C-alpha cells in the first residue's frame, strides 16, 4: 500500500474521532451511538497502521487490491447502519402516530366538554 494512502487513512480516522468527540461534547448524539462511530474510526486507524495484515486478509478474501477491501468494509458497515436507522424510524413513526391519535381524541373531548 502506498505511503500516502496510509497517511490519508490515519488523518481520516483522527478527523472522525475528533468529530465524534465534538458532537458528543455538544450533546447532539447519545453516548450509546458515539461508541459506534469510535469503532468505525478505530477500524480505519487499524487499516492505516497495519496495512500488511489487511493486504494478507484481502488476498485471502479474493480482493484484487487492499483498498477494495477497505471500501467493502466501509460500505458494509454503512448498509448495516442504514438498516438500523430504518428500524429506528419505523419505531419513531409508531410513537408519533400514537401521540397524534391520542392527543387529537383528547382535544376533541376537551372541546366537546367545554362547549356544554
Amino acid at each position, binding site marked *: 500500500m502506498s505511503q500516502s494512502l496510509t497517511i490519508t487513512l490515519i488523518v481520516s480516522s483522527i478527523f472522525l474521532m475528533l468529530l465524534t468527540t465534538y458532537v458528543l461534547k455538544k450533546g447532539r448524539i447519545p453516548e450509546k451511538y458515539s461508541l459506534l462511530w469510535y469503532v468505525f474510526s478505530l477500524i480505519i486507524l487499524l487499516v492505516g497502521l497495519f496495512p500488511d495484515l489487511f493486504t494478507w486478509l484481502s488476498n485471502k478474501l479474493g480482493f484484487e487490491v487492499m483498498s477494495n477491501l477497505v471500501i467493502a468494509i466501509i460500505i458494509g458497515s454503512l448498509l448495516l447502519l442504514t438498516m438500523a436507522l430504518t428500524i429506528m424510524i419505523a419505531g419513531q413513526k409508531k410513537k408519533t402516530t400514537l401521540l397524534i391519535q391520542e392527543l*387529537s381524541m383528547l382535544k*376533541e373531548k376537551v372541546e366537546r366538554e367545554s362547549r356544554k
Partner: protein
Amino acid sequence: MAQKVLLIIPAYNEEENILNTYNTIKNYNKKQKTNYDVIVINDGSKDNTKKILEDNDIPHINLLHNLGIGGAVQTGYKYAYYNNYDIAVQYDGDGQHDVRYVKNIIEPIIKDKADLVIGSRFVENIDTFKSTFARRVGIKIISAFMKFSTGKKIYDTTSGFRACSKELIYDFSLSYPSEYPEPITTAEILKKKYRVWEIPVEMNERVGGVSSIRAWKNIYYMISVCLALLAIKIRRYKKCHRV
C-alpha cells in the same frame, strides 16, 4: 339488547362530499329507525372539511397532523373501543358506499357468525360500478397472493367497506398498518383464525375527491401489497384476547 354501531368515516380533503354522506346516513337513521353513530376522522385536510364538520355539528376528530388512511381509520377504532361500541363499520366519506348495505354487513356479526365482514363488489354479479379493468386485474393478483399466504379466497381485497366485531375493534385499536391497511389486516385477521365473510354490495363511482390509490401508484401499490402478504405468510400470529 341492541348493539351499538359506529360508522368510522376517514376524510381527507372531502369538502365536496362529507356533508352529503353525513346527511344520507342521518336521513337513513330517521327513516329506518336505525341508530348508527358516526365519527368522521379528519386526517389533516387542507380544504374546508374541518369548517364543514364544525358548522354542521358532525361528530368528528381533527387529527393534528396527516397520518394517512391507516392512522386515521385506527383513530376511529380507538374511539370505538374507548366508547364501548359493539360493531365498527369502515365507511368512505366520498359517497362510494351505500348506507343501505350497512344492515347487510353487520348482520353476520350481530348473529355471531363472523368477526370481520367485507362489503364486496365481486362476490355476486350485481350490476354495479366495479372499478376500472386495470384495477380489477390488480385486485385479482392481490387476491391470489392472499390465497397463497392465508389459504382463503377473498375476492374484494381492497374494499374499504367493512364491519368488525368488538374483539377486532380492540385488536385494531392496538395495531393497524399505516399503509395498505385493507388487504393486510384481512390477511392478518385470517391468520389469527378469525371468521371473515364477504357480502355482496353495490358501490357508486366516486362523486368527487381523489381516491387514496392514485393511478400512477397502482403498480407500486400492488407490488408492496403482495410483498406484505408474503411477509404475513412467514409471520406467526396469535389472537390477542381482551383483558
